[in-house]
């Protein structure tokens, strides 16, 4: 066996991990931007409750979050039953469920930096944009959103990293099914539970480390280019 040649099971876990994390990011990021903007700009009734709910997965034991997801989105759960009956969508024991768990766990980590960067954008700039004829939405898209991009990027990186490594909520909610929900973290856990699985565990550790390293370098290059384009005033 060539040490540097990935085995099918490893490939499977790696690709699945990337797929789950990407799907989680794709769905959760726009939602995180919306929630962060609302929390940053508006004081509405229930502001504190929304804020607490968003941050719940951060403070709850991941197993609890996973179990709550199972109760709500399992086949017999109210949300799960509704989605399956209405749209034929199921989160039970499949990769979409893994993505849902990863997205929920990553959500507070995304909202926080995005909210902070929205709060740093002077709302008076939006008033200026509107005095120049821009509607609220256009003012948001052309002024506030671009100025908050560094924070959104930070939130996305943090969220993606969390989604890649999510373990507790995933294994509780959608179990540990090879090819369906067994991401790198779960595969590593499985290897450590197997007698003579040390080498496999070590290989998976190397793979996870390599992916994280490449992602960090890529985001750093991206952030540097972005700063150049924004004029350098937004560290």
């Amino acid at each position: 066996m060539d040490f540097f040649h990935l085995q099918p099971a490893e490939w499977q876990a790696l690709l699945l991990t990337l797929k789950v994390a990407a799907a989680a990011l794709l769905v959760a990021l726009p939602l995180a931007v919306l929630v962060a903007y609302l929390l940053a700009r508006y004081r509405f009734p229930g502001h504190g409750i929304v804020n607490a709910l968003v941050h719940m997965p951060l403070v709850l034991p991941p197993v609890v979050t996973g179990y709550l997801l199972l109760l709500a989105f399992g086949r017999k759960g109210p949300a799960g039953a509704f989605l399956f009956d209405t749209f034929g969508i199921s989160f039970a024991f499949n990769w979409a469920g893994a993505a849902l768990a990863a997205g929920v766990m990553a959500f507070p980590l995304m909202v926080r930096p995005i909210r902070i960067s929205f709060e740093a954008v002077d709302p008076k700039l939006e008033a200026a944009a509107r005095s120049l004829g821009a509607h609220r939405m256009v003012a948001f898209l052309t002024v506030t959103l671009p100025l908050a991009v560094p924070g959104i990027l930070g939130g996305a990186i943090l969220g993606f990293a969390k989604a890649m490594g999510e373990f507790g909520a995933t294994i509780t909610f959608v179990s540990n099914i090879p090819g369906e929900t067994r991401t790198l973290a779960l595969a590593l856990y499985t290897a450590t539970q197997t007698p003579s699985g040390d080498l496999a565990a070590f290989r998976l550790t190397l793979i996870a480390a390599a992916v994280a390293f490449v992602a960090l370098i890529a985001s750093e290059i991206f952030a540097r280019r972005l700063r150049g384009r924004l004029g350098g005033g937004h560290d």
Partner: protein
Amino acid sequence: MIDVDIRGRVGRFDLAARFEGHGVTALFGQSGAGKSTLTNMIAGLVTPSSGRISVDGTILFDADKGIDLPVQARRIGHVFQDARLFPHLSVRANLTYARWAGRRSGTRDFGEVVDLLGLTALLSRKPETLSGGERQRVAIGRALLSGPRLLIMDEPLANLDHARRNDILPYLDRLCVEAAIPILYVSHSIEEVTRLSNTLVLLSQGKTLAFGTVADMLAREDLVRVTGRREASALVSGTVTRIDSDWDLTHVDIGGAVLQIPGMAAEPGAPVRLRILARDVALATVPPQGLSIRNALAATIESIAGETGPYAEILCNLGGQRIRARVTRASVSDLGLQPGRSVTALIKSVAIDRGQDTPAPPV
């Protein structure tokens, strides 16, 4: 023409404003008088509780008819005190923002505005690399290029030091003369106000006390109360009649009487507006002799104000125009000064307010 008659409340601050203005209207008042609240209501950023606002016949707000145009539909170019340029966009993209984001097709030509404000060299730069004065010029250009029906300038010079202020004032002079739209110029500097505007609105503690032509308003006692005695002054308009190059003096006819003003750049025949501070005017009951002051003109006392304190404000009529004199109450008593009495006004110095005068429209 801008026509405002509104009432409103922001937090605990009550505002009641009523005025109309032509050309350049100055909104004058001390800090906390409610200037920004009033401009925010006119711009649509704050909603008044009652009244109406119209510009050149277009109703922007009318509580009775239920009209309240949103900010982006009011077409008001707003130049903010803090410029508020978009930091992530170049100067060019800031200037054209109203076209690409606001879907406004301005009536003004891009090149013309860039020339007017001297922005050519700045176009590709980012706002953070600009000086305070340059930022304000870009902000003014951006507002002009949004095709506004009214331009609000909210203390555009307040955050600038003296040198920057002097850099930008000539641009404002040109703008106020050339802009084909009404301008509302907010300021707490009487110097800027008299230099730039036609109509003056006096705002104090959330209420408009009075409005009228700048010359009329400067003659009012209640303005002095707001500006403070040191700034009490009068505006006089006249025509350059002669340049005396031997002595470097410019002769200005102010309606019968001629003032001699040192070293002024103007052509004979040019209309000028002059600002004369009350503290630079002394009065004599008989024409004095052997005096170094060149401007000693016959005048009639119109009124005397100031019953307390050491000084009295004396309003004098000088061939139909009014000037103010600030003398001690003791002198008023000793010289027997009273309304109707003929005196000689001794004018120590004259400030040139602006080279070209726009015809003052009727108010």
